């Protein structure tokens, strides 16, 4: 069923997920997004492309998730005056995406008064100058000297208020980013994040690669979600080349994705225990996680399943003895998880630290456009796996897990229950594995063809928008991690909590820096 947006003719995008696209003008851009917002739609991603080589200026694209599926709107803007109407009043999560699009492409989102709602830079720190835009096709970096890096944090003033700057190098084995806390006593009044430290030019790198080689880079946008990104990339490439992977390959992909979910949930549950001073939890969960990693290495050839999903299918298989091993592992794991769940749920110290800590209320989550695990723990029923038309999940009937409290404890519960559900799905997948080619050859990718990939990774929805260039090369690839939407939610969840609880709250979201810094 094609969604209806006022005055817009949507054309279907071929592929594994229901998706449509349309070119709009500035007025249509706003009215369509307003209509999508009214209909309960979400903004999934926003990015810009350089189309000057086609004499079409620049183009800004927004990907919306509606009830019916995905809608990609493209707004051509003039190269002489590269501004476009902002969307951050409708979708708060657009704010940082607008800023990133400006830093990389020099296209400015503006409010009706002609001014940018937030003109501060985001991904550009000092590595290139304000007059240069790396994703423009004629970009040639002229200076390597980092400029001074002053950034206008929002100041909180009042009696007894002071600031704690943290990062970019953090005190544990974590990715780099800067957190600026404004506190009074122990209480957090405000947290402001400054990210972008890991920006390593992934989108530009894609443009130097062939469509097939891009899969390897996609699998390294965020290492902890390598399966989700590799699948989304393969889905996008298959979408633009009219390729249909076999049923067997799709089921194996789902198996890998569920194993990635299990791995990450186990690791997070261990660290959440650790952050509550329950070192027992860390030791137990990381022992169990290591068992799964070793099984992955034995059965699939890689501990984190990197590069096992390839365009056209998969680069691994499960035979009868492997299926047996997986089923036996699942039984053991279920037993271990039951024991550990009962210990976590009944441990007074852990419950005391987690219940009501770091609450993200359902209303705030909706306003910020929060997705994935964090949204489900705040009362929202959303999961791309249960979206109609998402093969092969349609047949697997996954059960969506959610919780209404929105606190650290709720995110622990969702992780436990999702791990159990993934184990159940694994069993269903193994039972239903049909014969079929592991990998089919890709169809022709004509220049300008456009494809979308959309996968529910363990953290939330992972997106890839891919456009083919000449000779099987990538013209533009935009990978999108759910952390874009969820980082601002952390700023809200921590308000009113004490500073020592921040690591716990942060871990309960466990967002990717690499995935959002690109």
């Amino acid at each position, binding site marked *: 069923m094609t969604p209806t947006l006022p005055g817009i003719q949507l054309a279907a995008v071929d592929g594994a997920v229901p998706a449509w696209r349309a070119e709009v003008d500035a007025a249509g851009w706003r009215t369509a997004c307003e209509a999508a917002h009214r209909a309960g739609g979400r903004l999934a991603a926003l990015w810009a492309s350089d189309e000057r080589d086609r004499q079409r200026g620049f183009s800004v694209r927004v990907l919306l998730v509606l009830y019916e599926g995905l809608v990609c709107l493209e707004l051509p803007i003039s190269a002489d005056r590269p501004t476009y109407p902002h969307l951050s009043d409708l979708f708060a999560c657009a704010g940082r995406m607008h800023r990133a699009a400006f830093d990389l492409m020099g296209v400015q989102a503006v409010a009706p008064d002609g001014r940018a709602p937030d003109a501060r830079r985001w991904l550009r720190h000092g590595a290139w100058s304000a007059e240069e835009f790396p994703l423009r096709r004629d970009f040639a970096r002229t200076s390597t000297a980092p400029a001074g890096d002053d950034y206008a944090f929002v100041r909180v003033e009042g009696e007894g208020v002071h600031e704690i700057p943290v990062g970019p*190098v953090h005190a544990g084995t974590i*990715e780099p980013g800067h957190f600026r806390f404004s506190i009074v006593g122990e209480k957090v009044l405000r947290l402001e994040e400054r990210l972008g430290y890991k920006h390593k*030019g992934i989108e530009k*790198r894609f443009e130097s690669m062939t469509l097939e080689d891009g899969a390897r880079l996609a699998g390294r946008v965020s*290492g902890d979600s390598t399966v989700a990104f590799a699948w989304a990339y393969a889905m996008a490439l298959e979408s633009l080349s009219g390729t249909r992977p076999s049923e067997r390959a799709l089921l194996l992909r789902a198996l890998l994705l569920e194993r990635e979910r299990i791995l990450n949930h186990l690791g997070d549950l261990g660290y959440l225990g650790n952050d509550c001073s329950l070192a027992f939890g860390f030791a137990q969960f990381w022992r169990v996680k*290591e068992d799964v990693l070793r099984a992955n290495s034995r059965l699939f050839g890689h501990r984190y399943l990197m590069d096992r999903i390839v365009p056209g299918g998969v680069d691994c298989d499960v035979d009868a003895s492997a299926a047996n091993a997986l089923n036996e592992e699942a039984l053991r794991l279920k037993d271990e998880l039951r024991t550990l769940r009962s210990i976590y749920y009944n441990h007074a110290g852990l419950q005391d630290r987690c219940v009501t800590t770091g609450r993200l209320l359902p209303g705030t989550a909706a306003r910020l456009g929060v997705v994935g695990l964090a949204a489900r723990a705040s009362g929202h029923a959303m999961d791309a796996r249960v979206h109609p038309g998402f093969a092969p999940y349609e047949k697997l009937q996954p059960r969506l897990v959610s919780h209404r409290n929105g606190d650290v404890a709720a995110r622990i519960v969702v992780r436990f229950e999702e791990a159990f559900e993934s184990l159940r799905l694994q069993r269903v997948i193994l039972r239903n594995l049909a014969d079929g080619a592991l990998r089919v050859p890709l169809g022709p990718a004509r220049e300008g063809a456009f494809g979308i990939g959309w996968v529910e990774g363990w953290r939330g929805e992972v997106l890839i928008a891919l456009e083919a260039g000449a000779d099987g090369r990538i013209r533009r690839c935009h990978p999108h991690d759910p952390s874009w939407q969820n980082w601002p939610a952390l700023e809200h969840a921590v308000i009113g909590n004490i500073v020592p609880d921040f690591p716990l709250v942060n871990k309960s979201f466990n967002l990717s820096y690499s995935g959002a810094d690109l």
Partner: protein
Amino acid sequence: MRKILFQIARTGTISEPAPSPDAALRQISGRLSDDVLKRLGRALAIRHVDAGSCNGCELEIHAANSPYYNLEGLGIKFVASPRHADLLLVTGPVSRNMEEALRRTYEATPEPKLVVAIGDCGCDGGVFGESYASCGRVANVIPVDVAVPGCPPSPVAILQGILTAVASLGR
């Protein structure tokens, strides 16, 4: 409490023996005297710095802290500040936005100090290479004693890299 104790007893001791040092991983040698290395090898404080990785190497550094590898039993401990560290464990290609932070972390680490670069990206820039936003390998920014390849390298490989850095290797 009873359940926790029962689970600990049921799990038992699962630690595995440590790998041997591998001279092939060395980038530079002879920086520190055998005497210093011998002391560090008994109580080594490590500061991890992510200089721009995809976070895959971090997963394996976490995994190296699992009970299977018994790091603390080998005298190895991760610390929260470079000022407490003997060795920096650096992951990722160094993003230009992290270049300065990595240099400052290196400068904040007291002498004698060692640097181990982790992963294909740390060794040669990996899939990200050198670009407007990436300085490539760690050695392009700070001196590296030992480099451990892999995408990501396994906990055993990481451990081997660390032990190689503090081994005197018959010099």
